[in-house]
């Protein structure tokens, strides 16, 4: 049967870049999301409020657009995005993919999309995850030999601003953006960029939580660190956090005295200092973490490494060898 992925992505990430579609090019800001595989942008057919305040693709204004005659539904938690499929030229700077299949949104849920700073999503996970079996943008880039190497990598700035939050490198790795060696881990399930989490440590003590194996999804479309609910209590206790309606609150004054947390992946120990996992919003400090009740597909505890983690580790995604590499960010 067809695997339909209900992307109930809550899109709390907020890093995005520019693409264009059509001839002449129509520009869009998209979330480059390693946690999904569809490419879609709002269209002039869309009458939802979420489309009013975003750029919209106008098929009749593109001389190279061809309608696909199919539509599919990408479900995003609080509602579904209905997209009509079509083909047109996708451009990302010097990269050009002709006849790239993409979605033109017909209907979008106000929440969360009305509040998004980006217009659409460019999914960068595996083709098997694409709703409607549509061709992925990365697949088109590979097929039309638009990438110097079958690799892409992300650098997220530790001090992001609206103008500069980081960089996506399509077709390679930039040694100026990281330090030391890259630790590679094989993808364990070719739907997402999912790797084995060998161990989790708080300070110097390695917990036994992953002694039977854990999985971690590397997801640029998620902002926080997601930890299995069953371990959350212990983590809050170890990090001196209290649950409030605003999240897991900690005393800002204690931030620097808190322990590092570390993830064992690909034989390396990838540590996060407290300055990475404590968010300080106008003097109110919370842990950049949330819990999940759901395990990975094979039943092992599932963690999600979102932007909070990716700011500390430059991350490379090797499509040829289905592996993910991590190195401390420059």
């Amino acid at each position, binding site marked *: *049967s*067809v*695997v*339909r*992925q*209900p*992307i*109930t*992505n*809550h*899109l*709390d*990430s*907020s*890093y*995005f870049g520019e693409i264009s579609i059509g001839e002449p090019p129509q520009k869009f*800001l998209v979330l*480059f999301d390693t*946690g999904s595989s569809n490419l879609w942008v709002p269209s002039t057919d869309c009458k939802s409020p979420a489309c009013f305040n975003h750029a919209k693709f106008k098929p009749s204004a593109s001389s190279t657009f061809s309608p696909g005659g199919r539509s599919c539904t990408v479900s995003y*938690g609080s509602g579904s995005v209905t997209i009509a499929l079509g083909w047109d030229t996708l451009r*990302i700077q*010097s*990269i050009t993919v002709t006849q790239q299949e993409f979605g033109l949104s017909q209907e979008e849920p106000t*929440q*969360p999309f009305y*509040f998004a*700073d*980006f217009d659409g999503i460019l999914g960068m996970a595996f083709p098997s*995850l694409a709703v409607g079996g549509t061709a992925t943008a990365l697949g088109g880039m590979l097929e039309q030999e638009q*990438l*110097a*190497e079958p690799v892409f990598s992300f650098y*997220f*700035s530790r001090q992001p*601003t*609206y*103008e*500069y*939050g*980081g*960089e*996506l*490198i*399509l*077709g*390679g790795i*930039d040694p100026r953006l990281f330090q030391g060696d890259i630790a590679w881990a094989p993808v364990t399930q070719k*739907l*997402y960029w999912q790797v084995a989490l060998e161990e989790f440590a708080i300070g110097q003590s390695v917990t036994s939580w992953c002694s039977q194996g854990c999985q971690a*999804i590397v*997801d640029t479309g*998620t*902002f926080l660190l997601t930890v299995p609910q069953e371990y959350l209590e212990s983590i809050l206790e170890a990090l001196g956090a209290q649950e409030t309606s605003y999240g897991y609150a900690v005393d800002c004054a204690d931030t620097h005295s808190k322990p590092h947390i570390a993830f064992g992946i690909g034989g390396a120990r990838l540590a996060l200092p407290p300055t990475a996992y404590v968010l300080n919003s106008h003097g109110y400090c919370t842990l950049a973490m*949330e819990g*999940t*009740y*759901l395990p990975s*597909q094979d039943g092992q505890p*599932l963690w*999600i490494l979102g932007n909070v983690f990716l700011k500390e580790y430059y991350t490379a995604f090797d499509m040829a060898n289905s592996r993910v590499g991590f190195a401390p960010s420059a």
Partner: protein
Amino acid sequence: AVRISLKKGLSIRDKMRAAGVLDDFLRHIKYDPVKKYQPRQG
């Protein structure tokens, strides 16, 4: 390789909280961050 500069906007969560709709949204959709990854047989 092609370098795409990424902008960093406010997270959607922050904007929805500022608009006073976040709690209701999360309650309504029984939010779980991993729901995104639960492929369902079509």
